[in-house]
């Protein structure tokens, strides 16, 4: 299958006259690897996100499977050279299936001392370290907290150091182009990129095309960046040891169209796909709150007919807007983050009571309160399940990987519409910010979503709180004659939907709303197990820990341990067979980026004494951490 034909499709027409061209490829020694983890790190102004993205694109287009994790600085603009301003972007590319952006680094590119300082601890001994030596000056070293120059004091002895005076080489490369200082600086990132592309034997085409499109109106920058890129690509051969190239073979993939997709893009595309597939208008109301804002931004960018995107006046307004839109016959959606999600508790109650289809995406971040903005955490699970006054059940899903955002958005839309209920999708910055290779579905591969608008039926009084076989009430769209009705937050009489204070009716409605959610279980897939169907240990996860768990379990399986992995994308209701699956293993390990919230749910539901592996550091699990816990549990078994 490695012989599969592969060609890169270009979606944007080439408009420019100046055609950047690739330099001829310098020769060098080549080392083969299965997979590589590289991190690009520099000052916020050094363009590391761009370098990372372009490197990823090139790797993916080259035929590797790719998993990435951007790590932009928390500050909008920290002082130049400060630790707080370090921006990172990690790429894991390989010739076989990978699940995470990688624990430890096989290579690090550090544009300045602060970047080195912040990232060196993650670099494997003996790994490749590429350094821009021109920035290792007294001021920069001081800002990074280095007492002496690590290039000289032996600190870096255990790495394969590639010391490149990038500022200087880049300046030389663009000397003939008329640039202002800031532009020259921007070109430096292309120099670094060129160097990396050469080192890992990736093609330049994708980047050249990107340059052409991006600077279409600025031929001077096309010229300059192309020169920088080529200089990096060529000069590398001339640089000091170890100028060895590393090559990672293409992966085998099913036929189809492929792209890189971030979790935020995937969610956005999934929502648009739901609108496309159903023909329903999509109304997305969002209030900026990092890291959820990315979805709002994406929706503004990917404008589509039949899709309306609005920045609400606050988080509570956002959900009310979405709910109003759902009442009006659209798919109402909002996306938020912990603080906004807490605020929306009241509005979610209204959504449950009015039984309208809407979707709330919560990109969880480290809390409580303002917490640590944008850092990944999974500590909103119990809030999603129980965070509303009264008995207020709804459907809760969680996305497992960046590309799963597409499927989960469609699944959320499907369930919301099928069951006439709000659906919560849990994510976090680790999955929305990360990206991976994704096979783009064709339009007819999109799953069916069954929309049934209520229709008046002659002679019968309309029952706005009548029920179908799924206990869903009818979706009666204002504008339809004969279906005029009133809904809202007060308890409804079964059938008529009139306000009712009747005690037994209330109990019936509480039970009906709960059963409706329970019934949704019939339309969701059972929990699948990866590994032996019974045995010593099951590792059960949910949400963004998917990759780390899958990788850890695979490693342990390779070592011959009796361990299986399973992953929950549906948290409410849980797949029907969840309890059965749990009971087939002697132990159950539940790794979570919280203090053990799914553990609580499982203990309550199945009275199984699951073991919780908790990490609450605003950071994802390392594969190694889960692997170690598995080994520990099996040792003591």
């Amino acid at each position, binding site marked *: 299958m490695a012989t*599969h034909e592969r060609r890169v499709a270009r979606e944007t027409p080439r408009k420019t006259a100046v055609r950047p061209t690739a330099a001829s490829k310098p020769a060098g020694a080549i080392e083969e690897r299965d997979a590589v983890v590289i991190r690009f790190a520099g000052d916020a102004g050094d363009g590391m996100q761009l370098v990372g993205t372009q490197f990823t694109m090139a790797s993916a287009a080259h035929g590797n499977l790719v998993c990435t994790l951007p790590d932009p600085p928390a500050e909008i603009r920290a002082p130049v050279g400060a630790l707080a301003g370090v921006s990172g972007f990690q790429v894991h590319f390989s010739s076989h299936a990978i699940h995470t952006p990688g624990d430890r680094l096989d290579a690090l590119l550090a544009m300045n001392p602060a970047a080195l300082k912040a990232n060196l601890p993650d670099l494997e001994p003996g790994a490749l370290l590429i350094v821009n030596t021109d920035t290792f000056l007294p001021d920069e070293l001081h800002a990074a907290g280095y007492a002496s120059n690590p290039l000289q004091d032996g600190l870096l002895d255990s790495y394969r150091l590639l010391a490149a005076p990038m500022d200087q080489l880049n300046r030389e490369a663009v000397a003939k182009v008329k640039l202002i200082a800031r532009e020259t600086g921007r070109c430096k990132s292309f120099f670094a990129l060129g160097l990396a592309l050469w080192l890992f034997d990736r093609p330049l085409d994708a980047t050249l095309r990107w340059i052409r499109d991006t600077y279409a109106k600025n031929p001077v920058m096309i010229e300059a960046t192309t020169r920088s890129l080529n200089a990096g690509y060529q000069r590398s051969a001339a640089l000091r040891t170890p100028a060895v190239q590393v090559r990672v073979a293409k992966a085998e993939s099913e036929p189809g169209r492929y792209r890189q997709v971030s979790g935020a893009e995937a969610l956005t595309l999934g929502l648009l796909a739901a609108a496309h597939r159903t023909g329903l208008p999509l109304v997305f109301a969002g209030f900026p709150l990092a890291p959820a804002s990315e979805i709002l931004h994406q929706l503004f960018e990917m404008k589509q007919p039949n899709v309306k995107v609005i920045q609400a006046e606050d988080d509570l307004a956002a959900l009310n807007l979405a709910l109003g*839109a759902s009442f009006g016959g659209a798919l109402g959606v909002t996306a938020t983050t912990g603080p906004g999600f807490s605020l929306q508790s009241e509005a979610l109650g209204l959504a449950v009571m009015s039984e309208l289809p809407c979707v709330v995406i919560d990109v969880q971040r480290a809390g409580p309160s303002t917490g640590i903005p944008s850092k990944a955490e999974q500590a909103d699970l119990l809030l999603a399940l129980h965070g509303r006054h009264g008995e207020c059940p709804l459907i809760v899903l969680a996305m497992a990987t960046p590309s799963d955002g597409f499927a989960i958005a469609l699944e959320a839309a499907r369930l919301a519409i099928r069951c006439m209920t709000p659906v919560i999708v849990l994510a976090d910055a680790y999955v929305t910010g990360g990206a991976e290779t994704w096979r783009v579905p064709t339009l007819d591969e999109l799953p069916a979503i069954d929309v049934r608008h209520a229709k008046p039926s002659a002679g019968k009084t309309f029952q706005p709180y009548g029920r179908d076989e799924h206990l869903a009430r009818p979706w009666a769209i204002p504008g339809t004659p004969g279906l005029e009705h009133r809904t809202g937050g007060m308890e409804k009489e079964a059938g008529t939907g009139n306000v009712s204070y009747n005690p037994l009716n209330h109990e019936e409605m509480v039970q009906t709303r709960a059963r409706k959610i329970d019934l949704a279980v019939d339309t969701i897939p059972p929990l699948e197990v990866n590994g032996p169907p019974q045995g010593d240990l099951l590792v059960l996860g949910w949400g963004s820990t998917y990759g780390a768990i899958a990788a850890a379990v695979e490693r342990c399986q390779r070592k011959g341990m009796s361990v299986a992995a399973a992953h929950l994308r549906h948290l409410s209701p849980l797949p029907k067979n969840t309890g059965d699956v749990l009971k087939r293993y002697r132990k159950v390990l539940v790794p979570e980026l919280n203090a053990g919230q799914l553990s609580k749910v499982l203990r309550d539901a199945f009275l199984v004494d699951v073991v919780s592996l908790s990490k609450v550091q605003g950071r994802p699990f390392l594969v190694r951490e889960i692997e170690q816990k598995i080994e520990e549990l099996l040792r003591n078994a």
Partner: protein
Amino acid sequence: MATATLPLLTPNDFSSDREVRWCPGCGDFSILSQLKKVLAVLNVPREKMVFVSGLGCAGRLPYYLSTYGFHGSYGRAPALATGLKLANPDLQVWVVTGDGDALSAGATHLIHALRRNVDLKILLFNNEVFGLSKGQASPTARPGTRTKTSPEGSFETPLRPISLALAAEATFVARTIDVDVNHMSEVLEKAAAHRGAAFVEIYQNCKIFNDGVFEYATDASIKTDTVIYLEHGRPLLFGRDRNQGLRLNGFEPEAVTLGHGITMDDILIHDERASEPTLAFLLSRLIGPHFPECLGVFRSVQRPTHQQLLDESFLQGDPPRLFEKLLAGDESWLVA
């Protein structure tokens, strides 16, 4: 909406089958019945109308109408209605709110619906008290109002809904009163005809918790002296013999009697279409006992609606890409 084929509707067609649950004597009854009359002549089919409300006695109104309705949560009706209108711009959407609902929890949403000029008809039933929650001070309570939460009389400066709506860039701002049914019809019809956000404050008597606060404006024996009816382009006159009027003294309004050197030329002319709402703002500040209070349209100007602006904005910039293209993104590749 084809209007020619519309069957003629009567106010009764707008009654739902629900028993009306306000206190006997409540001003809400009068508003409801007048509203039904207005709805009947708007030439809009019933199914195209939606009443969205917040919580409070006022908020129950949708239950008593046979249109579509949504009884939302406290203070959030303007946001919910904005979403509804986005989903379905064809609908005629009314928002019913109370002074507590609109100006305590909901002020933010109200202000934003107004500045966006969402095509909503917003009716604020102002009884200057929290009714449904059984008698607490409202943000519009007059100083001295005794309630369960102001046992010695309210001492916070009340908000003036009209001033606030004007400051929130509203394009249509009016005030009327529950029992003056003709005036109310006139104002409601104008609000319905306005394209964009129409804000109407309705003085409403709460029989139980704030009875009689608007008596000065309803008592026929005195209201000619205590009320000015605003008419666009007409002088601001009042009094039984319409011989009193408002004139400006610097920026201070003055209530004067014609004669003794004061002529019609001295009297301010109402202009609801002024480019800036300064005069409207001035009029919103007038309260008794030293001034008559204004009823009628304070401001009525045209500005593109939220929907129009959204549509325009959509046409600007790059045209939307085919969904297939979006899916494939900027860079994709085929594996054969």
